[in-house]
């Protein structure tokens, strides 16, 4: 009996003592950043995906189950982008994190969606997202909606800390508005600029700053570029004098470099999340990098 008690005590010790801070798991590093801003020192946040990963393609690992098992709250991107999270949440058997429970936060709730398909949707359209384009965090204005959802989740988990969370949220919104004004001002000369993007990751960004996405390296979402598709893009770029290709940092450079070589267009490789490139340490850094890259490309042209 003594042995059993000792083993049980040992296991309990290994499992770690319950801390006062809230353990939060996020799907992406952008959500982690926002969560840390709202939660402050009351939260300990970990992201499942790294900033350089394609969120469509994150491979669930048992170690992720372990993290979710101990978590008080999970924050997901939603809109089918992080479908890999469902099997992880189920495997973690943590009742707090199931859909509809107190620790479940979908950051996409309330975001005005773009490219929401109408009518029949099937794989002839590529890897289409049935609820709309899920790259909504690339409009910095949507950060306020994401932050509001996280705020609501944190308040549910720690109702006695509402005032602190509200203050942090207000500060984050203020910072977002300040940066948004700066980016809007810097992007104003680029309004109406036609660009080619690799994947359909940038409609929210383009809509916010008045860019025109004229085409994608991928013929359809998730479908690799064919020679004939690149050829048609080449003709389009020449005909419409498109001089900028914007590509996510994790996609192959072969297609963009081919088009750039033939047209003289500049390729802007941009991080889509915190940690997506060296020096991109905050959510605001993501846009600083993209805006600077576009400014440089246009200046070079």
């Amino acid at each position: 009996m003594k042995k059993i008690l000792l083993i049980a005590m040992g296991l309990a010790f290994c499992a770690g003592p319950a801390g006062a801070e809230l353990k939060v798991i996020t799907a992406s590093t952008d959500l982690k950043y926002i969560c840390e801003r709202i939660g402050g020192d009351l939260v300990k946040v970990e992201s499942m995906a790294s900033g350089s990963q394609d969120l469509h393609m994150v491979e669930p690992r048992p170690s992720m189950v372990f993290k979710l098992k101990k978590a008080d709250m999970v924050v997901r991107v939603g809109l089918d982008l992080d479908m890999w999270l469902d099997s992880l949440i189920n495997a973690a058997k943590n009742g707090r994190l199931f859909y509809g429970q107190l620790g479940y936060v979908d950051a996409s709730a309330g975001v005005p969606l773009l490219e929401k398909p109408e009518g029949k949707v099937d794989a002839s359209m590529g890897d289409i997202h049935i609820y709309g384009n899920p790259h909504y965090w690339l409009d910095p204005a949507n950060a306020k909606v994401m932050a509001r959802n996280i705020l609501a989740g944190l308040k549910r988990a720690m109702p006695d800390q509402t005032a602190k969370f509200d203050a942090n949220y207000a500060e984050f919104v203020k910072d977002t508005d300040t940066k948004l004004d700066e980016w809007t001002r810097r992007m104003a000369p680029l309004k109406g600029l036609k660009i080619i993007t690799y994947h359909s990751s940038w409609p929210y960004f383009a809509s916010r700053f008045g860019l025109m996405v004229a085409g994608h390296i991928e013929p359809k979402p998730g479908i690799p570029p064919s020679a004939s598709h690149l050829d048609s893009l080449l003709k389009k770029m020449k005909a419409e004098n498109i001089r900028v290709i914007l590509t996510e940092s994790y996609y192959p450079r072969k297609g963009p470099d081919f088009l750039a070589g033939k047209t003289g267009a500049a390729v802007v490789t941009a991080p889509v999340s915190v940690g997506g490139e060296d020096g991109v340490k905050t959510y605001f850094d993501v846009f600083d990098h993209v805006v600077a890259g576009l400014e440089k490309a246009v200046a070079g042209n």
Partner: protein
Amino acid sequence: MKRFMLMFLFAAITPCAIAQDSAAPSSGTPPQGMRGTPANLPDISLIGVIDGHVSSEKSDDTRNRLEFNEIETAFQGYIYPEMKADVFLALHKHDGTYESEICEAKVSFLRLFEGLSAEVGKIHVDFGKLNKAHSHVRSMTDQPAVLTNFLGGHSLNPQGGTLKYLLPLPFYAQLQAGAWQGAPHEHHVDGERTAEVTDTGNNNVDVVLAPEDSSEFSPADKIYTSRLNASFPLSAGTELELGTSFLKGKGSHYEHHKDDVKIAGADFTLKFWPTTYKRLTLQGEYMHLIRSVPVGTFKRDGLYAFANYRLSKYWDLGARFDYAENAFPDITFERDYSLIATRHLTETTTLRAQYKYINLSGDKAKEGWIQLTFGLGPHSHELE
């Protein structure tokens, strides 16, 4: 078995009542299994597998054909808070004819209490790494010979239930135990062939041989399984999973053979992600079978080693080595070498080619396989 059932029922009923009370309002996108909610429909999907092969073995009457091998339809959804139902119906070709089968039909109790879940129904048993995985999820056109020889030509999927417990340790570790009823004569194991052999006491006795052209064997009757697996992140981009499994049951013709079967297994999976789309997987499984028949006990071994490198978002290259003895008294072995290339067309559609060099106790053959796997609709499996 009765005790297990009673404990399970008690545990199952209690937390569901609690779960119903604690449900909170939610917003945002519904997760898998809830996409059909507006129409009150489950997630409905279909997976199709078309394949064919050429072979140097002229007696192989299934060669030189390209045909539908399997269709798997799935109906998945929630039936109660924290209770999910997944039904997978399969239509697959065996010996030239299409046969329908309940591939899996299970209800999952996602959380009985903290860290504990359960599944009941007809289930792919969690034994080793690959038995659980549906064929379309595997990175190969066929299954390793050791699975065919010890667990059956299709995954071992008896009726019963299993409890899974995440151990309170500072790393991922899950312990599970299951009790099952496996139907005899499943997986087309033919027990008509017999031979006279000398037993350990120098007596001549009749024993059942492996069926013609097959060394397929499958446990049946009352089957008890357990598995312990743990995972260790070695770095941010490297993870090692270790597992051990045990099975106790009878043979698929136990009413004639009066045999008891025990299988012990050990497996490892090492995954390394150097960049977003690159991944190296090294995986291996070893199984040791002990089959006791009235005239004595014989022991058999089998293993596979698999290496797979994802070199881009669209391409995988793999190699596999198989060694497996049969589960019958007249010992034979199979030693295979495979090379596999997979092209990912979309997230759900793949085109695969596999070259296989087969050595069946000295009889050698070469095979070339091609396989197209496609998916329609939202289809998901639990973490494998």
